């Protein structure tokens, strides 16, 4: 199947449609919530939560013996929340850095989860084969009810986000100030973190424990590059996330053997790289271009100013001077001279140059401006 075929099939083929819808919704909700993690500089949070969910999956399986995804995800939710609140507890009680606490819980839970998985693998009943799909995810196992669950959680999340928008914003920007205004910042914080946990747990089946945090961070990091407004950032992150889901699914199902989760994450990373290079205000490319343009302008201005100094000493401002004088002046090049000629600030005649009236006015203006700024 190639990409074209995929897009013609996506509306008619039930399985394909389910998977595409699922990954799109997942991308949207994680992108949305990821904005909050990115702005709070909690880049490890997603990793910690997804890794903390693993033992929950194993334990849920050990207790119920079921492979039904809802049961296992419930287990993941419980241990994910447990991990998250331990992290909070460690940070407030021990004054360890939040990175340290996140790392600690991450490795502790993940280690324990892996231990349980190996244990399950050694069990005689062959029922367990499916559990390791939660490590790297397997989008192909998504069914309609999974997608419904994702849609409901996303809708709920959107509702809460709109309802408490102002509270979320002030918590993100200035938590202490929010406290003095009488907001219970702990409640807002727990609300937001719980939704992040929920979204991550929902993504485990599709993207897996290991890569899940990229789904949280990548769309949001990309979105931040394009806007200076929080609402637009959240919206863009959702869009980028959804597109990553759709494109990722399209690419992986058109290349038979590629697993979907990693491809989705790769697509999301492409969004990030593209945004970091090409964003008009924050991107590397435009920053470089602006830098070069500024430097060129400055060189021209310096040369013009130097000429102005010389011309000033004569009654006739357009009195010709030899180009050699300029060689004593740093930053002078033939190219800048040519640029000044192009702008009609200067005329050349053999080895002589002279300022035009336009060039003289421009240069004296530069001086006035400078003097004003220095005041």
């Amino acid at each position, binding site marked *: 199947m190639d990409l074209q075929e995929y897009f013609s099939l996506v509306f008619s083929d039930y399985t394909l449609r389910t998977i595409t819808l699922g990954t799109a919704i997942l991308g949207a909700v994680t992108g949305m919530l990821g904005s909050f993690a990115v702005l709070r500089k909690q880049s490890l949070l997603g990793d910690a939560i997804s890794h903390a969910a693993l033992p929950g999956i194993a334990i849920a399986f050990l207790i119920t013996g079921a492979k039904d995804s809802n049961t296992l995800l419930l287990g993941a939710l419980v241990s994910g929340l447990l991990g998250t609140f331990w992290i909070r507890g460690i940070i407030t009680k021990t004054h360890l850095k939040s990175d340290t606490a996140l790392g600690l819980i991450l490795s502790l839970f993940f280690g324990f989860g892996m231990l349980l998985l190996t244990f399950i693998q050694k069990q005689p009943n062959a029922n367990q084969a499916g559990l390791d799909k939660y490590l790297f995810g397997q989008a192909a196992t998504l069914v309609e009810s999974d997608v419904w669950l994702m849609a409901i959680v996303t809708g709920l999340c959107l509702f809460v986000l709109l309802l408490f928008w102002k509270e979320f*914003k002030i918590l993100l920007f200035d938590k*202490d100030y929010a406290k003095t205004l009488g907001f219970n910042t702990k409640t807002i914080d727990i609300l937001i973190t719980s939704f992040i946990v929920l979204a991550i747990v929902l993504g485990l089946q599709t993207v897996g424990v290991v890569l899940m945090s990229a789904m949280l961070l990548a769309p949001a990091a990309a979105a931040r590059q394009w806007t*200076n407004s929080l609402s637009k950032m959240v919206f863009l992150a959702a869009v980028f996330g959804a597109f990553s889901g759709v494109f990722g699914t399209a690419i992986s199902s058109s290349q038979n053997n590629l697993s979907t989760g990693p491809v989705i994450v790769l697509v999301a990373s492409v969004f990030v790289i593209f945004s970091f290079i090409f964003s008009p205000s924050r991107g590397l490319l435009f920053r470089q271009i602006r830098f070069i343009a500024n430097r060129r302008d400055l060189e021209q201005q310096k040369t013009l100013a130097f000429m102005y100094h010389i011309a000033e000493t004569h009654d006739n401002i357009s009195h010709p001077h030899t180009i050699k004088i300029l060689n004593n002046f740093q930053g002078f090049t033939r190219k800048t001279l040519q640029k000044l000629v192009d702008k009609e600030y200067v005329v050349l005649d053999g080895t002589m140059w002279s300022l035009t009236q336009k060039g003289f006015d421009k240069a004296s203006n530069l001086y006035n401006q400078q003097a004003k700024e220095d005041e």
Partner: protein
Amino acid sequence: MKQKIAVKVDDLTVAYNYKPVLWDIDLEIPEGVLMAIVGPNGAGKSTLIKAILGILKPIAGSVSIYEKPYEKQRSLVAYVPQKGSVDWDFPTTALDVVMMGTYGSLGWIKRPGQKEKKAALEALEKVGMLPFKSRQISQLSGGQQQRIFLARALVQDASIYFMDEPFQGVDATTEIAIINILKELRKAGKTVIVVHHDLQTVPEYFDWVTFLNVKKIATGPVKDIFNDDNLTKTYGINYKVSIQE
């Protein structure tokens, strides 16, 4: 004439980890003063304000605002945090930050409307930042950011203002503009408490002062207690400021 007490702090002790950074502070701030809190770096000035405002939980002691517990009197109090306490690269505009000053009176869920926007614009005007209202906050200079924070507190329309180093990193013109706003607040009967580092300007700007270095060294009218003796006790070295009155 007996002045009303706006802020009363009793036996306040605060510690991060185990080491107390504020010891047994008693403080009465009369209504309508413009008070400086002075002390060396790490003296606990920011901590004192944070503890009064309930941002930090003290180990011991209590705070009352007009004779009632602080929690009941929040709406009377506004706060200007130290500028470095937030990430200025946050995606929002100057106007939006100032609007946050209205969130407290709005309470949960309710969104700011035209009335709040008008109040925010007026506050921006007052601090001379109206032309920058749509500016992304990372593209403001340090002094402009400071004025945005001041405007946000002004919007709260409180009776008592706590400001943590509002003059940090501002030029002389802005400093004068800010102090004039503070003096106007005092004229309107408000109480203004300011963490201040420039000892030279204390007598000129303030009428009340508190010396702090882990313990409270002294508190009272500038003309009575702002002297070399208290400065030396607070800063540890032999201090000589020439005080012009």
